[in-house]
């Protein structure tokens, strides 16, 4: 028991020393004296979000994103970065609570112009998320917890997959600007903040993968179709060195569609789960 106590104290001390940044963070990499912030990259994302209703409580969550980033000559849309396929089975617990479980296949393109390595590598994820919505006056606010189990590899030939977990929390509001509620014809503004933490053997110190601050302007065309566009600033520790932060400015464009493929007779009553 006494031994355990001493052990704990020793580990605690080590943690404090590590946090002070005066020691090596990772084998082979040396933490800088002060955090270093890379020059921001510019990017543009085109995202489609589908929520296809298949039964009273289940829907198919289908997302496809096309992510571009700058090249030396062209900001924002210079080259394709990733193509993102995210699918899940969603469950509507109530109007305000839903859960999803599914997989992601992300195609990563090598955007390092000087690299001789492979151009394209896949990345696999299993993800589940828990979303809570809440009306506040005429607006809605949302809390989203998303957990991803992620297998990535580098562009080098024969590079090994590394496994990481991602812990994401997103807070978002949708505030109607020209209406007393979110309905057809409404223009709304949506500020959001998301923090993405990560863990895994490969993650040493770089626990904050990304912090995203976004503001979007949206428009509801019909109850089944809306569009949005906005600008996101994000920063996060690089995996290689926890003292070095990457930064991005991203333009985002979204299309949200939610068709209902149920037969007419099954749609009634439309959405009344428990109320």
């Amino acid at each position: 028991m006494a031994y355990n106590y001493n052990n704990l104290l020793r580990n605690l001390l080590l943690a404090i020393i590590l946090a002070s940044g005066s020691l090596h963070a990772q084998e082979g990499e040396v933490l800088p004296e002060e955090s270093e912030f890379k020059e921001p990259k510019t990017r543009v994302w085109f995202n489609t979000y589908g929520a296809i209703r298949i039964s009273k409580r289940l829907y198919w969550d289908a997302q496809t994103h096309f992510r571009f980033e700058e090249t030396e000559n062209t900001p924002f849309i210079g080259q394709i970065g990733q193509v993102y396929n995210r699918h899940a089975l969603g469950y509507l617990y109530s109007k305000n609570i839903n859960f999803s479980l599914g997989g992601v296949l992300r195609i990563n393109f090598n955007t390092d112009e000087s690299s001789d390595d492979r151009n394209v590598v896949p990345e696999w994820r299993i993800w589940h998320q828990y979303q809570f919505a809440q009306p506040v006056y005429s607006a809605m606010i949302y809390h989203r917890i998303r957990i991803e189990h992620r297998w990535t590899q580098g562009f080098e030939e024969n590079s090994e997959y590394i496994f990481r977990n991602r812990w994401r929390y997103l807070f978002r509001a949708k505030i109607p600007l020209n209406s007393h509620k979110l309905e057809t014809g409404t223009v709304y503004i949506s500020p959001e903040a998301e923090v993405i933490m990560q863990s895994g053997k490969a993650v040493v110190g770089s626990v904050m993968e990304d912090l995203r601050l976004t503001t979007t302007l949206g428009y509801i065309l019909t109850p089944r179709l809306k569009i949005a566009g906005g600008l996101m600033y994000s920063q996060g520790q690089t995996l290689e060195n926890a003292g070095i932060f990457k930064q991005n400015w991203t333009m985002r464009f979204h299309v949200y569609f939610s068709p209902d493929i149920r037969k007419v007779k099954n749609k009634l009553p439309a959405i009344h789960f428990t109320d």
Partner: protein
Amino acid sequence: MTKRITHTCFWALLLLSSISHQCLGQKRNLYNGNYTIGAYQGKARFTYQVVGIDTIFDGSFKMERSNLGALLKNNDQSFLFEGNFDDGLPQGNWIFQFGEFSTDSTTNVSGFQYSVNVNGSLQEAKGELNQGKPEGKWSFSEKKIKDSQILDTLFFSEIDFLDGIPQQSFTIGNAQGTLVGRFLRNGLAHDTWSLFSNEAYNIENWFFTNGWLGKIEVNAGGIPIPIEIFSDTATRSKIIDLDEGYSTLVSIYADHSSNTAIDFSKGINELLVQNSSYYQKIDDILSELGSNKFLEGFKVKAPYFPLDSISRRQLDSTVKLAVDANAISKGFLENTRLNLIKRSDDQANTFYRTIVALDSSFLRPLGTLVKLEDLGITENLSEDMLSNYLFPNGKPSAQIVVVDDNGNTETFLGPDGDSANFGARGVAGYLAMAEYAYQSLEQIKVTLGQKLEDDKQQQEFVLLEEQMIAQANALNQFPDSVRQGLSKRELKALNTIKFTTEVLLRDYAEMPTGNEKLNRARMLISCLLDFDALSQQLVKLPERSLELQKKYTDAVFNPFTATIMDESVKKRISSAYTNVLIPYMLEKVENGLNCENARDLQLLFQNSYERMLELREEDTSKMERKLRKERNPKVVLQLFNLKPLEG
């Protein structure tokens, strides 16, 4: 050998079965169910035969009705008819019962049955029938029932019959007294018929000799007053039924011979009439069942003064003319309009008074003659008796003097009044009077009828025009709050209705008075009703539009916002209604409204709205495809399955 025997047996059996089949052809069928005889409806159970296409009662018959529900609620009229038929005619013992009961709802339970206390009356007739005719003793009774017990006998009668002819002595009684009398074997009244009070006190006697009623004696305060009826000097006599006609005849003869008036609503006559009505009631039922021989058959003798064939024809003509003249007279005297205009129109007033005079001098006496003829006793009165009876104050004159309220007199003389001979003896005189009265009334009818017709038309105009103006004023009288909800287009259509109404009324006003104008007025009233209905449809449009909008909206859950949003459904249908049909109908009102299409238009507004309500629920995918970009209202109407407007 064996085969041959078998063969013979087979034919014998076939013959036997065909004979038995012939016999069975006469077999009785049983009916058991609801049945109606005249005014009686109830449950019947009887046997019958079908002979050719005829159904003939044969065997037992029972029909009854009683209703506990009706008894408890108010009162119940029950009945029971039970007896036998033989080859279509009533035969054997029969019983008829008629009850009229109410209850105080006092109930008793005895064993496993509830019994209910009843009050009311029970009529019963029973006896034997032979080929439909009464045979043996027939008894009738009516009893008063209180608390399910017999309280009193209201009527009874017992008569013996032989082959439908009353025999020997009979008794008929009611709460006041009892009549006893007797018949000869041929049914003629004979000997003294006496009425006794219930205290056995002699009230009235009729003295018959072989059916001939020589004298009636009425006991007034213990003193018998004799009244001679048919004198012995009459030359001829005839056997007739003792019925209402005979009663009338007796009262006429009694009045003629005596100053003592006999009250025929009481005494012996009352009992005879009562008895006759009970027999009639049974005869009515048996007649419906195919036999009309149930009569009490009392026979009497009366003086007889037969008419020759000329007089008979004249009498028939007299009766016909008197009936026709009376109808004309009654029509005028009961005419409310004549009663009104006689107050302001002197000529009408004179006519009215003339009709009153003709009625009292000619038509009433002739009406009495018609009644005697109906009773069949005209030929039982001598010429003088008849004349005195019909005209106790002498025959009227053809000249009718009418005096108005101011004492002015005016004389009316009908067609051929100068040559009319009312004084002729016998029927000829009556015929002359009937002809004169009829012709006079016909003459008056020509002038007075036209006067009434004009007045009627005038009155009708006033009424119709009042109604028309009220309708026109009421049209478009909607409160501002209603009008403000209307679109410009709808208001315009509403104003078109008002404007069209004004034009129609102006054109009507310019028409010359006459039947055509009257018809136009009637048409306009129905037209303005349609206009009003159309206006009502127009003012409902905003409210209906909102209602349909709501009906054609679904609540849809959006998973991205986690909110419920309203979604318009079947947009092509609602759009076709709002953007094609409504403008089309409004356009029709604005540019083509008239009396002929107003009704169709208002129906189209109504029907299209109702159709929209239906379409929301129906599977319309095919129709929606066809409606895509369809702007032609006629095609839309067809797709909506609505009747298009004509023209």
